[in-house]
């Protein structure tokens, strides 16, 4: 008997000693990297003007002991959200993808640091002036893209217009669950009369079509895999997009390639030996570590276990805690970059109470937006007076007429027929209470705090605000857009100019009930404008209308937050830059 117990205990003890030694297997990785010294033509934008320069790429020799805090010339980046797929054309969701996608893929055109579009794979941006963008009398268009010659995919094959045509045709296969077809499907036809010329035709006028067809795959890489699955038949589309050669390890054209991915743990990028869209990258490796809990991520920064965090990493409070930690002052820098998004309340205008503009204006006066920014963010953020950021060429402060004025709010409510009830909550002549619901996604502590502040501020003017939050998967399917609460949806979005057309014009985008003839007219003119000056005029007009109609309540401009170890160069938050933090990955390097 004793022997049996001893055997069992020994087995268990042995197992507990052996198992820790098991480590994650290393998938087959692209390990070969070649040092390349070359001259490269690079287009930069200086003060809004594209400037072409030739860069000789000869990395500086590394100092003795190696570069970086570990001497391995590697950057370790912590992120709270993990990208789903690593091949841009097939990724579905995840803001996290942007920072990883930046080092992996360059698009036809991209935004520079000032927010101006600049050509990357093509010679120039199509415009009416240069003749590459033709608009016919009936509104149909033809856009021609001239590709640069000699640009390479990571396996050395040339990037051509045929790759775009292949991607377009692939997206037409209904069996393939392509999540984003918006840009591709707008084009009526897409052809490549020669390898370096792409011609897109459109049946209808679209002022943003020249933004480019974003998602490109390498035809020589993806076609054989696609045809292999198509031959098998059945539900081949799902199997095809979930083949890791397609979803994770596809051929791309950025300065880095995916060397290893362990889902849920890390992604390792190594230099692309055939990168010729810029100078060769200077880092030997970039490691993206997935750390889903924000507090743990902050601890990793404090413990110097990660060198950097991305925009989908720390929240404002954690970032400020890091910033205010004396021990980290000379080690870690906290970056806050521009007015990258708008935190706002969308009102259910289809509901009678909020359909009354007077009530909406009263609510604007009842909310102390500056007070919220001062108390929660130490005044570090800016109150939003429009849905556009102040840096936008078309910005107009349509909402600055709404100062914090509870007396004015109460006056407006009285005029609208809402008088104080016995419990302090206002009622109308039908005896209905002025009771609103505010709804946002659970888990966002800043928004939850702001909801409580709003509740207190609105209570002062006799409005009851009930807080009802749900997980995103429930809110966006059960309530938005088909079952809006009687009140507000509280959320934010990164600036996206065409969103104005979707959200504020009459039509399918007006899911929360806003439809104004004046706004429709202005947005139609905006849509048809062919030059920036004209567009600016209509942007301003639209913001004046918004300031009068108050269809949303802009609260403040959110900011992108990131951290970086001191002694690293190139980790820059540029709000409008395509590719997020990863926009200039080839220039990243340790300086000590």
């Amino acid at each position, binding site marked *: 008997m004793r022997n049996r117990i001893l055997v069992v205990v020994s087995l268990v003890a042995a197992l507990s000693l052996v198992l820790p030694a098991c480590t994650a297997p290393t998938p087959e990785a692209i390990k070969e990297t070649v040092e390349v010294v070359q001259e490269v033509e690079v287009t930069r934008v200086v003060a809004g003007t594209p400037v072409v320069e030739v860069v000789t790429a000869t990395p500086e020799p590394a100092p003795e002991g190696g570069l970086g805090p570990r001497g391995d010339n590697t950057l370790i980046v912590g992120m709270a959200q993990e990208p789903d797929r690593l091949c841009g054309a097939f990724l579905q969701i995840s803001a996290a993808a942007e920072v990883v996608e930046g080092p992996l893929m360059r698009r036809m055109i991209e935004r520079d640091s000032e927010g101006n579009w600049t050509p990357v794979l093509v010679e120039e941006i199509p415009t009416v002036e240069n003749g590459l963008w033709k608009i016919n009398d009936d509104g149909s268009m033809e856009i021609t893209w001239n590709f640069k010659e000699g640009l390479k995919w990571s396996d050395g094959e040339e990037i051509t217009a045929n790759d775009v045509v292949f991607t377009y045709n692939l997206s037409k296969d209904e069996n393939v*669950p392509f999540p984003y077809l918006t840009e591709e499907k707008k084009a009526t036809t897409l052809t490549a009369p020669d390898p370096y010329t792409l011609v897109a035709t459109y049946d209808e006028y679209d002022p943003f079509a020249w933004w480019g067809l974003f998602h490109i795959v390498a035809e020589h890489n993806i076609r054989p895999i696609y045809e292999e699955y198509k031959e098998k038949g059945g539900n081949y589309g799902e199997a095809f997009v979930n083949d890791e050669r397609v979803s994770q390890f596809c051929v791309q054209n950025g300065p880095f390639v995916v060397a290893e991915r362990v889902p849920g743990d890390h992604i390792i990028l190594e230099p692309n030996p055939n990168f010729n869209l810029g100078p060769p990258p200077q880092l030997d*490796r970039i490691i993206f570590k997935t750390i889903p809990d924000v507090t743990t991520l902050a601890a990793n920064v404090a413990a110097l276990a990660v060198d950097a965090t991305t925009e989908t990493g720390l929240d404002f409070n954690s970032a400020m805690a890091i910033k205010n930690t004396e021990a980290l002052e000379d080690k870690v820098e906290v970056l806050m970059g521009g007015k990258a998004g708008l935190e706002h309340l969308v009102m259910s205008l289809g509901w009678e109470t909020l359909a009354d503009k007077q009530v909406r204006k009263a609510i604007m006066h009842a909310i102390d937006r500056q007070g919220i920014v001062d108390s929660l963010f130490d005044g570090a953020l800016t109150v939003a007076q429009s849905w556009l950021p102040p840096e936008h060429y078309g910005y107009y402060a349509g909402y600055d007429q709404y100062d914090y004025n509870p007396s004015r709010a109460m006056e407006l409510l009285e005029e609208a027929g809402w008088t104080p009830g016995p419990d302090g909550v206002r009622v109308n002549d039908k005896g209905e209470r002025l009771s609103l619901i505010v709804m946002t996604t659970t888990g966002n502590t800043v928004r939850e705090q702001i909801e409580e502040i709003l509740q207190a501020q609105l209570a002062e003017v006799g409005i009851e605000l009930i807080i009802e939050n749900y997980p995103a998967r429930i809110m966006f*399917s059960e309530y*938005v857009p088909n079952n809006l609460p009687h009140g507000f949806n509280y959320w934010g979005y990164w600036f996206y100019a065409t969103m104005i057309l979707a959200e504020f014009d009459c039509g399918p985008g007006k899911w929360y009930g806003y439809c104004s003839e004046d706004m429709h007219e202005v947005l139609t003119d905006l849509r048809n404008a062919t030059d920036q000056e004209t567009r600016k005029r209509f942007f301003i007009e639209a913001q004046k209308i918004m300031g009068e109609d108050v269809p949303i309540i802009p609260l403040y401009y959110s900011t992108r937050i990131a951290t970086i170890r001191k002694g690293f160069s190139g980790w820059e938050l540029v709000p409008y830059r395509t590719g997020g933090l990863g926009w200039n990955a080839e220039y990243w390097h340790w300086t000590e």
Partner: protein
Amino acid sequence: MAKFLLRSVLQLCPTIIVVSMITFAVLHFAPGDPLASMILSNPEATLEDVERLRAAYGLDQPVYVQYVKWFARVLQGDLGYSRTFGLPVAKLMGQRIINTLKLTITAYTLSIVLGIPIGIYSALRQYKWSDYVITTAAFIGISMPAFWSGILMILLFAVKLRWLPPGGISDTGLQTSFLGGLKYLIMPALVLGWIDTTVWVRYTRSAMLEELRQDYMRTARAKGLKETVVILRHALRNALVPVVTLLGIRLPFLFSGAVVTETIFSWPGAGRLMYEAILNNDFAVAMATVLVFTALVIMGNLASDLCYGIVDPRVRRD
């Protein structure tokens, strides 16, 4: 014994099937659309896009049809694809299951190795100050949530003292040695195993106290046996019987506790995978992980039954 084992394995199959049906139904009827977050990431997505994707993923069919198709694929060894990661579920889960087993077995072993001896000691020192210290510590330990104690440990051992890494499973991108892997395992295993340690302390203490009061203990001492022999060979042997039955019952708590611990310590395990899959409506992954955990729990209970037979000859099965 062989018959018992065969019977237990055969009982596993219908249990798994019933659990799969219930889980599938709950996942599909719970609020939340699996395509909602995907669609809402693109504000210009149209109804046409939604319907196209729904058809591509087979989500437009009745739930029972989806279940039958899923089950048929599983029988052929195809667990489907993760919509979140764009990878086959089997590939995704393989290493994650191993990681979770590594963590839970280590935590479980630690809790038993620590909890039972401490429980015995506490029972032998009943009403002495050491007993009070131990029972108070056990009470505090059982009350501490893992997410709180985990963060505290990270702040102390990783941030302040820099003795241990703040999370993860290995030196990323490098070949991790045995000791290197161990340093990543210490904190999560302690946090996960701590509650079970306090459970074993309390149960062992109670069971030992019960046995120490029995008449046969007086007889054993009267026979002139050494106290160590009396305690370990007589009292402990009988006290272990109720404790061993708890081995299997505690397993589900361990796996569910792994979800929180794995998230706090960024441990890429199946618990965290299951949690994220449910949040993201990644049905294929959620189904597969739930079923794997079900199977593990059933097998754990089976192991517990076998241990029971080892400890108590009266219930040994032939």
